[in-house]
C-alpha cells in the first residue's frame, strides 16, 4: 500500500484482490488457488480510476464480491457493487471483522442445518425396517411441520445473526484469523461428508436406543407405553433435545437473545406439544390431533426420561470429546486466539508507534529571483541512499477507535485525512 517510486506506475496490471483489472491487453484470468493475496496498490487504483473503468471493474466475474467506494468520483461504483462504504479504510473492518464473521456464521449455520435435517430424515429410514417399508413417519405429523418452522428456527437464527468467535478488536490484532476463510476450511465437501456421517450416527442412536428401551416394556401401572404415539413423542423429544444441545455447543457467543431463543424454543416445544395433545384440541379438531393424552401418559414415566438422557449423552459426548481433542492436538488459529483471549482479558492499548523517519538531509535553498536550484534539490538526487526499509507492520494502529471497540466518530468526507492513519 505504500510505494517508493515517485511518478508513473511501475505496474501495468495489478493483481488487486477486489479490484480486478480487465485489461485491453490480453490478460487472462489466472487460475489462482490457495491463498489470495490482498494487494491494493495505490497506483493501480489511481490508474483504474483515471481510466474510468469503474463499471468494468465491478462487472468482473472472477471476484467474489465487489466493493465500491462512494466518493468524489461518483456513485457508480456503489450502484454496481455488493458492498459500499465511504472511506477506503473501512475495508479493513469489512474484511477482517464482518467478512470473517459472515463466513463463520454461514458455515456454522450450514453444517448445523444439514445435520439436523439429515438426522431427522435418517431416523425415518431406520424405522422403515420396522414398519414394513410403508413410509409411516416416526414422528407426529405436527412435529414434522413445526420442526423446521418453529422448534429449531429461532435458535439457529440467533446463531447466524449474533455469533462471533472473537470480537472485532481481536480480529484486528490477528489478521491471520482471516486465513481459514481463504482456505475454505469451515465448509467443504469433506466437511459435508463428515456432517453426513455424524448425522448417520446420531440417527442410529436416536432411533435404536428408544426402540430397545421401549419395545418390550410398559408403564409402571402396567398400561401401554410401547404404542406408536408414545414412541413418536419419545423419539421427537430426544431429537429436539439433542439438536438443542448441539446448537448450544456450536454457539460461541451467547447473547441474551440466543439464550432466550434456545430455552424459549425448548419450552415452546413442550408447551405446544401439551396443547396439541390436550382434550380440548382433540374434541374440536378430532382428526387433526389424534395424539390426545400421549404427552400426559408417557412423559410422567421415569423410563422415558432416562431414555432421553441416555440418547443425549450418546449423541453429544463424542462431539465434545472430538472437539476437545482437536483443540489439544491441532488447534486452529481461532482456538489459539480464543485461548489467548481468555487468558489475557484485554490487551493494553499500545502506544502508537510513530514511524521513525530517517531524516532526509535536505539543504535549505535560498530565495532568489530566478528559478534557482529548487528542482535539483527536491529531486533528491544528491541525498544519501535511503536504505530499503522493511515494510512497517500492517496494522500499527491498534488503539484507533475501531480497534478499541469504541463508538466510532465518523469524519465528514470533506475533512483532510490525517497523515498518521494507515498509509
Amino acid at each position: 500500500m505504500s510505494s517508493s517510486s515517485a511518478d508513473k506506475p511501475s505496474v501495468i496490471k495489478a493483481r488487486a484482490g477486489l479490484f480486478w483489472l480487465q485489461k485491453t491487453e490480453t490478460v487472462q484470468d489466472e487460475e489462482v488457488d490457495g491463498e489470495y493475496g490482498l494487494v491494493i496498490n495505490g497506483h493501480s487504483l489511481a490508474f483504474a480510476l483515471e481510466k474510468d473503468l469503474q463499471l468494468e471493474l465491478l462487472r468482473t466475474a472472477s471476484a467474489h464480491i465487489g466493493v465500491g467506494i462512494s466518493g468524489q468520483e461518483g456513485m457508480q461504483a456503489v450502484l454496481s457493487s455488493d458492498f459500499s462504504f465511504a472511506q477506503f479504510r473501512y475495508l479493513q473492518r469489512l474484511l477482517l471483522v464482518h467478512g470473517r464473521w459472515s463466513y463463520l456464521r454461514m458455515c456454522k449455520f450450514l453444517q448445523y442445518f444439514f445435520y439436523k435435517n439429515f438426522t431427522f430424515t435418517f431416523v425415518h429410514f431406520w424405522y422403515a425396517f420396522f414398519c414394513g417399508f410403508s413410509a409411516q413417519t416416526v414422528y407426529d405429523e405436527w412435529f414434522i411441520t413445526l420442526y423446521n418452522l418453529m422448534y429449531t428456527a429461532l435458535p439457529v437464527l440467533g446463531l447466524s445473526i449474533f455469533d462471533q468467535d472473537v470480537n472485532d478488536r481481536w480480529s484486528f490484532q490477528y489478521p491471520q484469523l482471516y486465513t481459514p476463510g481463504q482456505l475454505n476450511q469451515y465448509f467443504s465437501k469433506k466437511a459435508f461428508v463428515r456432517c453426513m456421517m455424524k448425522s448417520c450416527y446420531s440417527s442410529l442412536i436416536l432411533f435404536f436406543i428408544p426402540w430397545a428401551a421401549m419395545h418390550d416394556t410398559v408403564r409402571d401401572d402396567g398400561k401401554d407405553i410401547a404404542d406408536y404415539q408414545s414412541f413418536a413423542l419419545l423419539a421427537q423429544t430426544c431429537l429436539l433435545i439433542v439438536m438443542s444441545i448441539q446448537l448450544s455447543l456450536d454457539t460461541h457467543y451467547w447473547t441474551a437473545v440466543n439464550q432466550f431463543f434456545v430455552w424459549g424454543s425448548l419450552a415452546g416445544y413442550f408447551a405446544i406439544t401439551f396443547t396439541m395433545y390436550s382434550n380440548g384440541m382433540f374434541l374440536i379438531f378430532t382428526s387433526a390431533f389424534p395424539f390426545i393424552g400421549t404427552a400426559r401418559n408417557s412423559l410422567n414415566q421415569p423410563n422415558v426420561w432416562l431414555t432421553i438422557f441416555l440418547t443425549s449423552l450418546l449423541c453429544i459426548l463424542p462431539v465434545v470429546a472430538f472437539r476437545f481433542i482437536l483443540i489439544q492436538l491441532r488447534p486452529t488459529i481461532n482456538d489459539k486466539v480464543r485461548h489467548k483471549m481468555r487468558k489475557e482479558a484485554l490487551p493494553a492499548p499500545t502506544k502508537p508507534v510513530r514511524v521513525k523517519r530517517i531524516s532526509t538531509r535536505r539543504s535549505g535553498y535560498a530565495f532568489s529571483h530566478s528559478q534557482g536550484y529548487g528542482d535539483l534539490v527536491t529531486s533528491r538526487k544528491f541525498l544519501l541512499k535511503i536504505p530499503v526499509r522493511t515494510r512497517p507492520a500492517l496494522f500499527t494502529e491498534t488503539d484507533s477507535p475501531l480497534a478499541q471497540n469504541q463508538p466510532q466518530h465518523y469524519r465528514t468526507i470533506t475533512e483532510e485525512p490525517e497523515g498518521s492513519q494507515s498509509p
Partner: protein
Amino acid sequence: MGKAKVKSGPLARRPDNSAFKQQRLPAWSPMLTANTVLPFFYFMALICMLLGVWLLLTVQSTQEMKLDYTEAGSCNLCYIKRQNASNAAQSCTCSVMFSIQKAFKGDVFFYYGLKNFHQNLRRYMDSRDDGQMVGRKRNLKNPSSYCQPFDKDQTGVPIAPCGAVANSIFNDSFTLSYHQPGSYRVRIPLLRRGITWYTDENVKFRNPKTENLTLAEVFKDTARPLYWQKPVYELDPDDPTNNGFINEDLIIWMREAAFPNFKKLYGVLNRADEVFAKGLPAGNYTIDINYNFPVQYFRGRKEVVLTTLTWFGGQNHFLPVAYLVTSSLILLLAVVLTVIWWKFGKAGKNMQE
C-alpha cells in the same frame, strides 16, 4: 435504538451506535477447556454407572414369564383348524400348561403378545375414524373415507367401528387356573377394567349419546365389522358398561403398537382372593384359550406374558446394561482425553500464533 430527532447533514444515515446494531451485545463466550470438559466426563461416567447399577437392581427384581402358545400343547389342533378360513365361525379351545418356579410377589399383569403383526403400517394406521369412536352420530352413519374398504359392508350399511384397525381386533380369550397343591384347580380372577389410559377411556372413546335408548338401539343402522363375530354393543356380555366403543379390549387394540412385536394388557391379577393375595404362588398353572386369531397368514406368533412391575416398568434389561456400557465408554474416553491433554495441551501448542 431509533433516535428521536432526525439527523441531517453528512452524518444523517450513519447507523445507530447501540450495542445491538454494532454487534457489541454483552455475551458469554464459553470454550471447551480442560478444566470444564474433563471433570464433566468423569462426572457423567459416575452418574451413568450409578444409574446403571440402580436400574439393574430394579429390573432384576421383576419376574416375567413368556409363553408362546401358537402351537403349544393342544393349541396345535386349533392352529391347524384356523388355517382354513371357512372354519372361522367355529370356536376352538385349547389349553397349555406351564409352571412358575418362584412366586410372583405383588401385582401381576397378564398380557397377550403378537409377533410380526405390523400395526404400524401407514395405511393400516390411517384406516380408522376417531370421530366415530368419540361418539359423533354423524360419523356413526357416515364413516370417514379413510376407513375404506372397511367403512360399509356389501349392502351399503355403515360399519361401526369402521376401519382396518378395528376389524382386525385380537379376539382370543384366556382363562388362567392354578393347580393348588392337594386340591382342585382354582380359577385365577383377573381384573379386566381399568386397563386403559385414563384419557383413552374417558375422552378419546365415547359411545354415542344414548338418551333413554339401549346401546343396541343406538347402533341400529350400523353393521359389525367383517371379521367380528359379535357386534360392538355385545362385546362384553358380563359387564354392560364395557360395551360399545368404550370396551376396554377394543380401546387397547385401537392404540396401535409402534413395532411388529408387541404386547397388550389383557388383565390384572385380582388379589382379593386370599390364595392370590400376595401375588401368584409358585406351582403349576393351566391356561385355557379360546383360540380365534389366525396368525399363519403373516407368519406371526402369539404369546402370553405374566409379569410383575416396578416404577421402571417391565423386565427390560436394555437400559440398565446400556447405562453401564455407556459409563465405561465415557470413562475410557475421559481417560484418553486426560492423557491427551496432559501430554499435549497443557499450554503447549496454543502459545504460538
